[in-house]
């Protein structure tokens, strides 16, 4: 069990999202950065799309009520406090082990978002095939909302749990015995580049003047304050419509850039509605979608047009790069409180391991 002690800013549970229901108006949702979700899960010993906590700016403080293996993907400044009040650094991009009653304070995040994955996953009910939180309709997560102080979440009830829970305990035992643990470290953490976002010309490119198209590709746009999981509003040169700013609604998707009458573009993200009534000037390609999740208010975004063949090649590259990243993880010796584990939990571990 994990108990949330403090959640100063919203954090939500996200997995691979809820595909297959968009014709019924249900948004896709899911992790803004599916790659970092996969990395966090790999470090925690989970399949790539296992549900994890998606954290923005400032993470929660939480307490483990049993020993847990978990991992942080992102530039956190996290610390672990033991029951005696001793505190140690909790590294990013590596498996972490919490003993009974130890507290993880995720601290502030330098990256826009980050993920906290726990071995075996969070035991939340799947809603329409996904545990992703979609707050607007109260779907997924804990009662369809972000986490708050006092929440208690069971850990490790995925189908894979029995196996992975066993592995976690084996790992702990292995550490105690001085053997090599099944804990992992990512030697070269991924970087979020600030290269221009690659876009495909939008389905309503012809609703805009050539001057607007040139301005869209030529200028930088600053991320506005209205930035959440539904989308990012951008400030920059006003993009002028040629044929009016309303269309008869048609489908949108994460990455689509729509421009309402005020000429300020909006990049849609994972929680966007399924259809929209504004012309779409361009769409960010799938391979660059994870980067959008990290964008913070005030940051400048630039766009570059590419063709569909290049987008496909970029998607292949991104898939290969993620696989390579996960393959590059090396065994790690955890920095954890061995005494606490000895005193409290090894006996459980031995009993369970024998089953």
């Amino acid at each position, binding site marked *: 069990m994990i108990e949330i002690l403090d959640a100063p800013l919203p954090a939500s549970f996200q997995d691979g999202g809820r*595909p*297959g*229901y*968009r*014709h*019924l*108006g*249900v*948004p*896709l949702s899911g992790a803004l950065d599916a790659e970092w979700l996969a990395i966090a899960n790999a470090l925690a010993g989970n399949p790539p799309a296992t549900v994890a906590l998606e954290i923005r700016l400032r993470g929660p403080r939480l307490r483990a009520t049993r020993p847990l293996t978990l991992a942080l993907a992102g530039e956190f400044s996290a610390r672990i406090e033991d029951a005696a009040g001793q505190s140690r650094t909790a590294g990013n991009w590596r498996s972490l082990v919490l003993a009974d009653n130890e507290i993880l304070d995720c601290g502030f995040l330098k990256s826009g978002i980050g993920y906290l994955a726990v071995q075996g996953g969070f035991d939340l009910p799947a*809603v*329409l*095939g996904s545990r992703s939180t979609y707050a*607007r*309709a109260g*779907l997924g997560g804990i009662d369809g909302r972000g986490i708050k102080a006092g929440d208690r979440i069971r850990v490790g009830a995925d189908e894979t749990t029995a196996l992975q829970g066993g592995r976690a305990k084996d790992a702990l035992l292995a550490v105690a015995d001085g053997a090599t643990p099944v804990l992992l470290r990512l030697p070269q953490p991924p970087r979020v580049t600030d290269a221009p976002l690659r876009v*495909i*010309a*939008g*389905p309503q490119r012809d609703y805009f003047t050539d001057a607007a198209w040139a301005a869209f590709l030529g200028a930088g746009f600053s991320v506005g304050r209205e930035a959440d999981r539904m989308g990012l509003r951008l400030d920059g040169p006003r993009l002028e419509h040629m044929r009016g700013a309303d*269309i*008869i*609604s*048609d*489908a*949108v*998707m994460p*990455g*689509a850039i729509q421009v309402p009458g005020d000429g300020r573009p909006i990049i849609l993200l994972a929680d966007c*509605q*399924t*259809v929209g009534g504004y012309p*779409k000037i361009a*769409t*960010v*390609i*799938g391979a660059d979608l994870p980067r959008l999740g990290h964008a913070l208010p005030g940051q400048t975004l630039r766009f570059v047009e590419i063709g*569909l063949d290049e*987008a*496909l090649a970029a*998607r*292949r590259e991104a*898939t290969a790069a993620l696989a390579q990243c996960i393959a590059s993880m090396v065994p790690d010796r955890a920095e954890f409180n061995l005494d606490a584990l000895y005193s409290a939990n090894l006996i459980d571990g031995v009993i369970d391991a024998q089953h």
Partner: protein
Amino acid sequence: MKPRLLALGDGALTLEFGEHIDPALNAKVIAARDALAAMKLEGISDVVPTWRSLTVHFDPLRLDRERFGQQLLQCALAETQESALATRWQLPVVFGDEFGPDLAAVAQATGRSAVEIIEALCATELRVFLIGFLPGFPYLGELPDWLRLPRLATPRAAVPANSLAIAGAQAAIYPWQSPGGWHLLGRTPVRLFDVDNVDRPALLAPGDSVRLTPIGRDEFERLAAAVAAHAIDPARWQAK
């Protein structure tokens, strides 16, 4: 206008039939959806019909865009007929009073009586053009010309769930409580969105059709209680 393909990024294609609201156009969209479903292609995650277009979200690493685009254009040629995938619904509605607080104002604005409005609504076969805005939120149409009103000048902060509302040529039923600027005429006891129904969480799907049947307050309360107790199979709301 000839159907055309539009790229919605590298992970979706939109088959566009036109740029206006028209039942004939929407019928082509639904026919294309049905034709695509019959192909049983791998690599497709979502097929989203709208008023006038069909968008397919797919994995370009599993489905060749070029070839798939040609297949979609083939689907565009499908004959419009009564869709085998569509359902005809008959939904009970209690009109007026606290259930439809705008009925009197709509009567005044159109110069008709409340009874005439209810009769006209219930005599119209409403087409489900689109589900959007909220999960399970149906855009139904089209209303008789004389019943088409602009939206409320000041939207309500909270429209009760299950409210039947109209604006312009459209009617809708709110599956959730939400803000809304449409005219509220009544309320249905029918559950429009059920997260426990994994196969089909929304009762209505694009291409379906809906007839409204007036019921009284007592009948509404009886049905609403039965729905809340999960004592009614949603199939009961299908037209006989």
